[in-house]
């Protein structure tokens, strides 16, 4: 069979359209056979085909040994294929790498320049630490190769070596530096070195400060824009360390900005000025101001330039970097930045949006938000418009087919630049989401500090609901079995939370908020807001339902809302939304039925019972809902409704004769009281944590020794109550055995409400003049109920008079007065002062801006601030959070979750290029020097010591020989000599230091070997320094480790001995 070459493979692939997979598998089978062939040509061809198929995702790791075979071919053409295959297919775990080492060494030393280039290009892809160590000796000479092309590749290869084996830089860096400093070096080699230095630079900028003069020279010489860009990048990491550079750099950078025609260089100059902190450093000086102005005007020009989105993009990036330090300067250009919000390109929009969020103020908030809203609205229609099939290339899933048919297209020269098909892109969902999030962020910033029109804001929120992207889980919509964990908060929830927030904080617009909630909830308007089933906006319904329930009395049409809530489709909603619905239903019911003034007529009775029947009908199936929250609420309210139904039907109605028939108390009093309580106020997240524990509070001490008995007694007491109340109590009251007395008496003795008091509302239940005792008790009970609820802060407690609690009542009635319940310390929330200051705050920070003056009729909104305690700012919480966040961030980074494709260079940060350090005198390198000096010194001393001992030994031998024969005659070998030394030393100092002496010898030998390897250049001068310092300079030795010190001690002992 005649084997295919690579062309035939590709041609075959192209002709087997439709069944490429089969063809590929067939080809792979052939390759497996061919690659085992003895014919090198065939082997190389097979390998080439494998490399081609690898590009399409067909693993070829099994062929790694064959790769090696082809790599070692003497023919260049074949060798090249082998190296290409190695680069493309070798992975860190490829075992043949060990075998490749010698081949790489051999090819590095090849006389043929193209052959040398092969390993130079391949080594960066396959290198590991142990290989680096052994290849280093072969690579270093290539730095002096006659061809610049080889030299520059070697430099980069050495850099990659250094990444896995930092020690590489010790011998290599001095040579590379010499190349950089050499003015006659080929410019492309210099450029390559600058690129490498730029990569190294940000890791250890202090090591490269000494290069600044040469780099500066290269920068000002001009000529190579690529290199200039890199030099500027490098300088931007150096300037923070060397402030003097700022002054030096300003003139050339300014002149480049003014004169260069290359946009990339211009941009990098500006970027370097920003990133290197030159703007801050030069602030105040005339040059500094000039350069800042220049940069910003150039950036502005980049933003407004027509037809180059790339410049707009990078200009926005630069603006974003300035804005943290010079927000004022940036906001001068907000007009052009705002333009970018509507850019056709989403990347640009996103970055503009980031900037705009920081520039928002009371004056431009509405325009910006309107602009964004318009964008969302108009783009909302895009998906339908873009049904054009040519435009949805993104819909392809995966890259499977390999055969291509449109040859004409492929033959189109790729020279002509990008085709133009300008078209407004449909907004992707994540962009939509981020726009909505940004709008909310802008509006709610600083507790609505920039907001001047809340009616408008509510309108915006309602509008946003329509713009919410459909939730990703739309497929599972309606499935009741969606686990709660999957319901991650989406943007609709955030919109809902804002609606709720406004309703709670801004009293003035509460009716508007309630109306908005009604609009959202009404079933017949659902199509407007949630066009498709599973639309992401559904999350808002939970908050809307809460607002509608909580402020039910403000709803324009509570009955319609209740009807919508009770609609059978509601049961299909998400569990969290449904739970909120369930909570709202009885509240609405209360508003509709609890009218106390009205007569209890037959008509009223029938509407009430009808309503109850509908609610019961809705709740009944939900008692089996899989979500426990929903189930529990359904069960609770179902039974409440049944009670209500009973009460309604049992209550006598007005029979003809004009006498007043009272509505059932359960409906007018009991049920409303369930939902009325303190006004809901926003509470700072940290407030609860700040509640101080009273000093006298002892949580371990029993409050009442004979509590058990009391409770039993209380149980017994209530037995006399009638049956219906028993049931009521069972459902309504807390499960604890503590019984309260407020509800069980069917307050029959209640007088008729005097006069025309206002409509019953659970929000201001206290205003209802019930009989005083009952009211008191009710309030007390409520306080008891909400005692553990962080959202209910009882301002009355601050007064210090502890009102009687239900428990108190019981105790009082059963035990008389002997137990002083008032003595039980109750924590006091001192809110008054804080509250006042909070209430006043929102008005204060708003500056009397020009805009406000123009529109004097603007309403003044009072925005309730968060309630909190003590210090006022909730730093503890935020600090705690941020520190936790940063901790997780740091652990996640250090925890090895490094990005794909990342080349870790952290190893470099540990290594100091010490000769650099010597000149710069950086603190870190200073230490290094001291340590090295100490080492050198010790080394020199040790060598002398060894020499001395050797001599001594020889002398001793001569002395000894007559007396006692050594085993093997003369001392020639160092090793033998060492043994001798030991015996010698032992002879002289019998007891303590003998062993140490032997160790010393071994140590010295090891040292010497290490030193030899460490290299040629730098050691020499340091050695001389070390020797100069050698004469017993003990001070220099202080930082040396104690272990070494001990050894030195030994040495001196020996000295003494001699």
């Amino acid at each position, binding site marked *: 069979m005649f084997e295919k070459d690579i062309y035939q493979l590709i*041609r075959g692939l192209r002709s087997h359209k439709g069944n490429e997979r089969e063809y590929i598998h067939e080809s792979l089978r052939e390759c497996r056979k061919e690659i085992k062939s003895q014919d090198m040509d065939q082997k190389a061809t097979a390998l080439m085909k494998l490399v081609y198929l690898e590009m399409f995702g067909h693993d070829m790791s099994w062929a790694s040994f064959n790769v090696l075979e082809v790599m070692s071919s003497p023919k*260049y053409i074949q060798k090249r294929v082998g190296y290409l295959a190695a680069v493309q297919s070798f992975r860190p775990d490829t075992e043949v790498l060990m075998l490749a080492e010698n081949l790489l060494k051999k090819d590095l030393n090849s006389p043929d320049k193209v052959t040398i280039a092969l390993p130079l290009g391949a080594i960066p892809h396959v290198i590991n630490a142990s290989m680096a160590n052994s290849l280093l000796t072969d690579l270093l000479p290539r730095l002096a190769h006659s061809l610049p092309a080889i030299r520059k*590749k070697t430099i980069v290869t050495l850099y990659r070596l250094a990444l896995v084996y930092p020690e590489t830089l010790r011998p290599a860096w001095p040579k590379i530096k010499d190349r950089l400093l050499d003015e006659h070096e080929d410019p492309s080699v210099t450029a390559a070195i600058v690129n490498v230095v730029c990569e190294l630079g940000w890791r250890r900028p202090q090591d490269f400060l000494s290069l600044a003069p040469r780099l500066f020279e290269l920068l000002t010489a001009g000529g190579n824009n690529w290199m200039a*860009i890199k030099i500027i990048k490098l300088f931007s990491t150096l300037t923070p360390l060397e402030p003097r550079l700022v002054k030096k750099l300003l003139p050339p950078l300014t002149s480049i900005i003014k004169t260069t025609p290359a946009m990339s260089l211009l941009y990098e100059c500006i970027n370097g000025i920003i990133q290197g902190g030159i703007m801050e450093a030069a602030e105040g000086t005339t040059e500094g101001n000039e350069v800042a102005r220049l940069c910003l005007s150039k950036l502005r020009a980049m933003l407004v330039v027509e037809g180059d989105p*790339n410049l707009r993009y990078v200009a926005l990036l630069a603006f974003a970097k300035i804005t943290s330090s010079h927000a004022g300067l940036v906001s001068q250009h907000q007009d052009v930045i705002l333009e970018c919000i509507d850019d056709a390109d989403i990347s640009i929009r996103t970055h503009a949006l980031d900037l705009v969020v920081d520039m928002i103020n009371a004056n431009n908030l509405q325009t910006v938000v309107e602009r964004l809203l318009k964008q969302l609205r108009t783009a909302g229609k895009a998906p339908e418009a873009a049904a054009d099939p040519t435009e949805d290339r993104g819909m392809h899933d995966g890259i499977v087919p390999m055969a291509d048919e449109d*040859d004409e297209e492929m033959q189109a020269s790729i020279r002509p630049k990008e085709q133009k098909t300008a078209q407004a892109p449909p907004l992707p969902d994540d962009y939509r989401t981020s726009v909505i999030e940004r709008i909310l962020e802008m509006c709610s910033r600083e507790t609505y500090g920039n907001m001047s029109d809340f009616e408008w804001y509510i309108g915006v929120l309602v509008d946003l609901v329509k713009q919410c992207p459909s939730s990703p889980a739309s497929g599972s919509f309606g499935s009741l079995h969606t686990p709660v964990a999957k319901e991650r908060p989406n943007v609709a929830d955030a919109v809902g939370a804002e609606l709720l927030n406004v309703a709670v904080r801004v009293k003035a617009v509460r009716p508007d908020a309630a109306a908005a909630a009604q609009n959202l909830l009404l079933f017949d308007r659902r199509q407007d807001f949630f066009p498709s089933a599973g639309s992401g906006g559904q999350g808002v319904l939970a908050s809307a339902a809460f607002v509608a329930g909580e402020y039910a009395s403000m709803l324009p049409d509570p009955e319609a809302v209740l009807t919508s809530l009770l609609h059978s489709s509601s049961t299909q909603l998400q569990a969290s939304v449904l739970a909120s619905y369930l909570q709202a239903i009885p509240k609405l019911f209360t508003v509709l039925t609890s009218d106390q003034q009205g007569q209890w007529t037959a008509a009223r009775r029938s509407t009430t019972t009808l309503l109850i029947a509908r609610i019961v009908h809705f709740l009944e199936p939900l008692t089996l809902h899989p979500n426990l929250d929903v189930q529990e609420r359904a069960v609770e309210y179902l039974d409440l409704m049944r009670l209500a139904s009973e009460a309604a039907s049992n209550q006598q109605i007005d029979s003809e004769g004009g006498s007043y028939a009272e509505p059932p108390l359960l409906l007018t009093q009991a049920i409303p009281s369930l939902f009325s309580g303190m006004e809901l106020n926003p509470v700072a997240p940290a407030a609860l944590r700040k509640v101080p524990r009273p000093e006298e509070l002892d949580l371990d001490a029993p409050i009442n020794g004979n509590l058990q008995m009391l409770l039993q007694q209380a149980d017994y007491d209530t037995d006399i109550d009638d049956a219906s109340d028993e049931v009521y109590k069972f459902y309504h009251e807390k499960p604890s055995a503590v019984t309260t007395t407020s509800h069980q008496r069917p307050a029959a003795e209640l007088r008729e409400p005097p006069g025309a008091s206002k409509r019953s509302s659970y929000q201001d239940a206290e205003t209802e003049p019930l009989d005083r005792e009952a009211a008191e008790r009710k309030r007390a009970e409520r306080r008891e109920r909400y005692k553990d609820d962080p959202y209910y802060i009882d301002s009355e407690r601050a007064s210090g008079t502890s009102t009687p609690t239900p428990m108190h009542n019981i105790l009082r009635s059963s035990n008389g007065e002997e137990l002083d319940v008032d003595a039980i310390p109750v924590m006091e929330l001192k809110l008054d002062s804080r509250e006042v200051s909070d209430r006043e705050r929102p008005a204060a920070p708003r500056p009397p801006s020009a805009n406000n003056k123009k529109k004097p009729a603007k309403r003044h909104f009072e925005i309730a601030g968060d309630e909190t305690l003590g210090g006022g700012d909730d730093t503890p919480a935020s600090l705690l959070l941020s520190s936790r966040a940063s901790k997780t961030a740091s652990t*996640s*980074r250090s925890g090895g979750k490094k990005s794909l494709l990342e080349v870790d260079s952290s190893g470099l940060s540990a290594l100091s290029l010490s000769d650099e350090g010597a000149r710069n005198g950086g603190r870190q390198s200073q230490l290094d020097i001291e340590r090295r000096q100490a080492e050198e010194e010790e080394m020199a001393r040790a060598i002398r010591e060894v020499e001395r001992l050797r001599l001594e030994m020889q002398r001793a031998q001569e002395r000894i020989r007559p007396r006692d024969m050594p085993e093997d005659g003369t001392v020639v070998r160092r090793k033998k000599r060492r043994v001798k030394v030991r015996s010698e030393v032992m002879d002289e100092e019998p007891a303590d230091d003998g062993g140490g002496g032997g160790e010393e010898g071994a140590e010295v030998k090891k040292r010497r070997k290490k030193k030899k390897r460490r290299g040629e250049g730098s050691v020499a001068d340091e050695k001389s320094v070390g020797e100069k310092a050698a004469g017993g300079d003990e001070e220099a030795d202080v930082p040396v480790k104690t272990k070494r010190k001990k050894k030195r001690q030994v040495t001196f002992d020996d000295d003494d001995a001699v």
Partner: protein
Amino acid sequence: MINAVLVFNNNGQPRLTKFYTQLDTSVQQRLLSEIFTLVAARPSSSCNFLPLPPLLAPPQTSSTTTSPESNDAPSLVTYRHYATLYFIVISTSTESPLALLDLIQVYVEALDRLFENVCELDLIFNFETLHAVLAEMIVGGVVIETGLDKVVEGVRAQGRVAKRPINESRGGLSQGIWAGR
């Protein structure tokens, strides 16, 4: 530094993949298709910078902080679209975005010089040359040469650059189409 250079056509079929770190073949393919999805969705009027694909996206928590460590991680995806081909460069923040665009331009011009009016078919059949040109410009993720002449000269020094085999294209369109350009 540069982390990867990719070339694929309008249908997402790879024409060159070069990763400067060792990655599993399957991961490479995933990255390729993620980037293709991103790039294909962009209209031609938009800028040449892509958001990071999900595979390369940094962990959520550290998105805003810029620590020195982040300089190692790829943060920039630059692309250019020529006729039927996309050229992608993935790099860290130490590279200049605008300079990378120029680098891609140099690469394409070098190919054009070598193949004389290069088109996708040339690259399909001579993907080895594609690698050779790249090797003259980037070694181990560091740019070593940006001069067009030197790159071309370096590739030619390795031997003759083959043209695409004659009669490759179907329908006899072969000569006329590129002769005229």
